[in-house]
């Protein structure tokens, strides 16, 4: 049974990303991408990594998509309201996608994941995941912190606003 859910979700994720890249209106594209991330999160959940599923939702859907929306808003990319085609044709993919994701979530919540074929043979609870991450991959965690450090440095340097650049004028010229 979980195998069936897995295939539905992967189909949903693929459809969502396909829709995301074919939309004219960037906001619609971002929403479809969020759908894809939810579907992906559920797949992680099926594979027995609930924490990664949660991370997927928090970081990708939560932070990065927000940033995308910021950029869209900032650069005023949204074209005028081009209403075309009958209502159901525009709304069908959205309903289909969100419907399948919600249904799969409820099914997964209730059904026993290990029971059906294709289910994961182990279940990495956050406790085991945390222990493994901070114990064996301790070095990797520190390297990630470095990456975050100069990601912040880079983000600031590249994205410096006009005002801060004016004040930093002495710095550059």
């Amino acid at each position, binding site marked *: 049974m979980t195998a069936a859910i897995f295939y539905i979700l992967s189909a949903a994720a693929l459809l969502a990303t396909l829709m995301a890249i074919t939309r004219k209106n960037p906001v619609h594209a971002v929403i479809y991408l969020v759908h894809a991330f939810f579907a992906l999160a559920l797949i992680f959940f099926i594979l027995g990594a609930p924490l990664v599923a949660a991370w997927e939702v928090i970081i990708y859907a939560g932070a990065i998509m927000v940033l995308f929306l910021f950029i869209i808003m900032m650069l005023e990319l949204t074209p005028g309201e081009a209403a075309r085609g009958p209502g159901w044709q525009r709304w069908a993919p959205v309903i289909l996608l969100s419907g399948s994701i919600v249904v799969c979530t409820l099914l997964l919540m209730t059904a026993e994941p290990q029971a059906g074929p294709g289910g994961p043979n182990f279940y990495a609870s956050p406790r085991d995941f945390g222990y493994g991450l901070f114990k064996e991959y301790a070095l990797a965690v520190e390297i990630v912190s470095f*990456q975050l450090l100069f990601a912040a440095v880079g983000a600031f340097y590249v994205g410096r606003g006009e005002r801060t650049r004016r004040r930093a004028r002495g710095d550059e010229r």
Partner: protein
Amino acid sequence: MENLVQLAMQNVNFAAIMPSLVLCCFGMAILLINVFMPRGKTTSASLISIIALLVTAVVSLQGWNNPQFGFAGHVALDNFATFFNMTFLLAAGLTILMSDDYLRREGYPIGEYYPLILFSTAGAMWMASGTDLMTIFLGLEVLSISLYILAGMFRHQLQSNEAGLKYFLLGAFSTGFLLYGIALLYGVAGTTNVADIGLYLSAHPAMIGNPMTVAGMLLMSIGFLFKIAAAPFHMWTPDVYQGAPTPVTAFMSAGPKAAAFAALMRIFILGLAGLQSEWTSLLWGLAILTMIIGNVTAIYQTNLKRMLAYSSIAHAGYALVGLVAANAVGVSGILFYMLAYTFMNLGAFAVLVLAGKKGEENLTLEGFSGFGFKRPFLGVAMTIFLLSLMGIPPTAGFAGKFYIFAGAIKSGYIWLAIIGVLNSAVSLYYYLRVIVYMYFKDPQEDYSWVSMHTGAVVSIVIAIVGVLYLGIIPGKIMEMAKLAIF
């Protein structure tokens, strides 16, 4: 509880990552110093970063002949890693030496430049000393992210933005391939430790043939081949090398390329020894393609930075020949070649740094006519570096090529060696053309703007000494390279 602590403590062996740790601490220190420093004063930052590199060199030399393993087998600071560390530190040192006056001349005296170079060198060190696919991947990420920023450093120049963006997009794309490859290999072998993968494959010969392993190997090699700018994945190199600031281009063509080779060698030779026939035939084709494309396209370039970009592709091809040979001589040949290449390439770029006007539009062949007599020291230095890039005997380039082709012939790849030799014959032409313009053409400008900044001159002198030492008496370094392979 107690044994947990003991268990926890003993696998943390700081000596294993000491060089990169020192570099990161210095990087963070410089970052903070810059913030509290008055605007635009970066000379102290470059001095501190030089000191940082020297300290790291001393620290990493302790690691020679007493290998340190730590972090549950993720990092191994053995001779192999130490030799490559010295190459990275050399590349970073020469880059920093030549970049202080360059940044001021181009109008971007930025404090963040030096920490980013130190961080990318630390990333390269993690890649070289990583024995776990995760550490290697993270090292590659640290290396490339800091280089994305460095490539796009000159924000008001369109070329630099283009370089940064192009490098970022293609880099992210290739890391995607790399991750996919790692995931597949993890799927096959159940572990990300390179040595364990090797053991697993030798224990289950049936798994060697199955498509998942081969696909994993192919995808992972795509990630690394992109970073060393091998043939089908070299499209980004010319534009990024031309757009990025010259010292960054110099660093990009030496440091990260060597790091990618280190990781490629460790994974292919240590981990995927079972798949040797597959990846040798893959690399065999790619090496020839890289050499031919690198050399042939370089002939049509008039911009010197772009020409050196294509020549760096060709040199990646020569080094790949050593990897195809995959025997003791070939592998230590690559180690030696990377060191020799760092010396000669960074030296050539140092001359370009000094010879360029603001905005660097005069770095073309015509811009160099009569340069040899107007600026004798720089002319002779550039000639030595070009001769070394050509592979003429008394220089490091010849010793490197000799070593690699000896490895190739020893493992029976005669045709590869012949094609390599013919390619270096083709490369004679475009390197010679620069010497022709420098010495045989009469000068159009008086090159008054070329001033001998101390930093760049010191880096040129170091590069010359390196090129001639490795060319005339390469014995000691070749001995160390032989000791360094596993």
